[in-house]
């Protein structure tokens, strides 16, 4: 059904500005980029992704990247397919899955003779990741966790007395610890802070649902806080919404909360009567912009107009030291595979205008009332300080 809608909107013809952008794009990619079998040209890491195809089994998808010149490790290849087809959704699970794959990669890594384990592993990992970045959208959480792995690899003490197995064990332990501390515990911490801001009688509008949002709402309901939930639904977010609703489908919780699902187009009328807007973030930039599911910016703008507070939930491992001015500066939309899959047969030609389906948008900091993170509740402009403090800390740790 989604595909149908897509094709409809395509045939409707894009607005003029899109066209001009497409022209630019076409000039940059004169050969018709979707036809290139393997896009070996390394991309910048991308946080955007196109397309909303319903989940498909990876086997059914013929991924063009299979013919890429240096073969991607199968572990990462399957991740690339799953991510670009939205089988793995959400910044948290992408990060965890990537780290899982890296762990498997490390475990099965065979050291080329005559090289140092640390250096050759780090070089191979980097090469694989560069390749992965060309084949699927690379979320901020993923690049942060990759940075973590590479830096902890770099800082490893490769003494004479330490065997490769010891080092391997250390690295795997560190990755496990990262997942536990930065991802799982972070959600718990966010729930603790977030509960302070959910008062009895609230009418909470929810969008851009992430693990933290679900956990917070569930906990609030379990604590017996009576509140009304207005879930804004779009075709892209049905997966998360059904997960949330399933978890709340509990006779005890149903007494406490009242859930309404409304379409995105009705948000305006609902906003007038709600008291809070709750959104999950997928990334946080140094200029205070919050990356969240497309449409979050509009809802935050609505909330600001009606003077309702907009709360974002965002873990610190999604903080990012870039400051895009708009989301198009992030520029990358989708892997070639996805694009080909989504196109109806008749429109598969170079002349067809490129119409991106945007999955994420950046809410400017002026519209963000508070970002609830695992270290504290912060105004979104404080990201640089948090990054600085975190860096300072890790430096101290490494030194000692």
């Amino acid at each position: 059904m989604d595909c149908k809608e897509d094709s409809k909107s395509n045939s409707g013809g894009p607005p003029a500005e899109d066209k001009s952008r497409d022209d630019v794009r076409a000039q940059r990619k004169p050969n018709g980029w979707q036809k290139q079998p393997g896009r070996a040209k390394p991309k910048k890491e991308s946080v955007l992704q196109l397309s909303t195809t319903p989940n498909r089994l990876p086997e059914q998808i013929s991924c063009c990247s299979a013919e890429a010149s240096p073969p991607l490790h199968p572990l990462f290849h399957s991740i690339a397919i799953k991510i670009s087809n939205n089988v793995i959704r959400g910044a948290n699970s992408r990060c965890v899955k990537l780290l899982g794959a890296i762990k498997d990669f490390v475990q099965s890594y065979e050291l080329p003779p005559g090289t140092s384990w640390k250096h050759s592993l780090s070089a191979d990992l980097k090469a694989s990741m560069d390749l992965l970045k060309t084949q699927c959208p690379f979320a901020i959480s993923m690049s942060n966790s990759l940075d973590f792995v590479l830096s902890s690899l770099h800082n490893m003490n490769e003494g004479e007395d330490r065997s490769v197995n010891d080092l391997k064990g250390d690295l795997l332990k560190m990755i496990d610890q990262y997942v536990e501390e930065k991802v799982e515990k972070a959600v718990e911490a966010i729930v603790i802070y977030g509960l302070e801001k959910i008062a009895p009688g609230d009418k909470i509008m929810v969008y851009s649902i992430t693990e933290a949002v679900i956990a917070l709402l569930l906990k609030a309901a379990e604590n017996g806080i009576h509140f009304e939930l207005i879930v804004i639904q779009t075709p892209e977010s049905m997966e998360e919404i059904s997960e949330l609703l399933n978890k709340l489908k509990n006779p005890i919780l149903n007494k406490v909360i009242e859930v309404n699902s409304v379409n995105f187009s009705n948000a305006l009328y609902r906003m007038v009567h709600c008291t809070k807007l709750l959104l999950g973030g997928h990334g946080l930039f140094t200029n205070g912009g919050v990356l969240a599911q497309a449409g979050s910016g509009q809802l935050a703008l609505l909330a600001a107009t009606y003077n309702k507070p907009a709360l974002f939930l965002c873990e610190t491992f999604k903080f990012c030291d870039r400051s895009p001015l708009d989301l198009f500066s992030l520029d990358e939309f989708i892997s070639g595979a996805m694009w080909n899959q989504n196109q109806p047969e008749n429109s598969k030609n170079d002349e067809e205008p490129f119409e991106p389906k945007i999955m994420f948008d950046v809410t400017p900091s002026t519209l963000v009332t508070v970002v609830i993170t695992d270290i504290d509740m912060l105004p979104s402009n404080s990201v640089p300080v948090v990054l600085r403090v975190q860096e300072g800390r890790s430096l101290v740790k490494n030194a000692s």
Partner: protein
Amino acid sequence: MGRKKHHKSNVPQSQPKPLPSSVPSASVNVDPGGPSIDPPPQPSLPPPPQNPVPPVQLKPVKMPGALEDPILVAETPVLAAVRALLRVIETYNGSTVNGLISELKSAANANNVVKQGTPVLTKSKLAVDSACAQFIRYATLTLSSIEAEDVSKCREQMMCEGLKYLKRCERSIEKISRWAVTLIFDGARILVHGDSFVVLETLRCVPKNIYFSVFIVLDNDKVATFFEDNYNIDVRVVRDAEVGTLMESMDLVLVGAEAVSKNGGIINRVGTLPLAICSREMHKPMYVLAESFKFSVLYPLNQEDVPEEIREDEITKRIRVDYTPPKYITFLVTDRGLLTPTAVCDELIELYT
């Protein structure tokens, strides 16, 4: 009106610096509109002749001198609480550092209970809370550098850091007024909300050759007469309802704060929010003068989110304070310098992590 006219006519004559162009026209606008019938036209105009008379009053910035006045007592519970915590460290005779810290924390909570008594103390409840939290944080900050498990050594260290913190608190108002005085230019018309001690102290410290007039939003004339009698500052007390009318002729707005929230907003005497909205709408700068011990970890999302025990008066049950979001504040003048609202959070993050 008489006084203001008087004042204005004097200003161009007596002061050598050129007035900012907006000032004369602004005051002309208001003079016919707001007829103030304050009888004493003298006080602000002749500061040069009066200069030799009250030099003793102008010099002391220390608290003790100010203590006798009822207005000024309100801010001192903070210092009292910090001193009390210092006493706790001094007299502690347990054997563990953790015991000492938990004792400090319980003492801070005890402060909490005591100060709910009178209205004056309710006002500084938030400040005492945040000051106690900061004190404990500062006192224990350097403990990790001590290797020995000797309690007395730790106590010494905490005492030393605590004393430093107390000294900073004591000197904060002096520092703030030194910063804030630079914001007040010759011929300025200043709107002040409430009888915040820091603001009044700042106004008092303005050099004698700078002429300015002050409009205080207050319910009573107490402060005005006090200031006219003691400091020769041209003060006019206005009602809350006059704020909108007066704002267009003002040059800047000065307010104090009961507490500064984590995002750089302030919690202050009720009426600050309308004042702030009004000043933003008319593009007048609004400066908040607040000591850094008032930086609290509160983060209200809106008015409703301010804890009720703070928002409402305990006895009358009327709303006592409101929350002003950071977007209305130009910047905060603190003893750590001039901070934009976002910088408050940065300071707090660096303090507490």
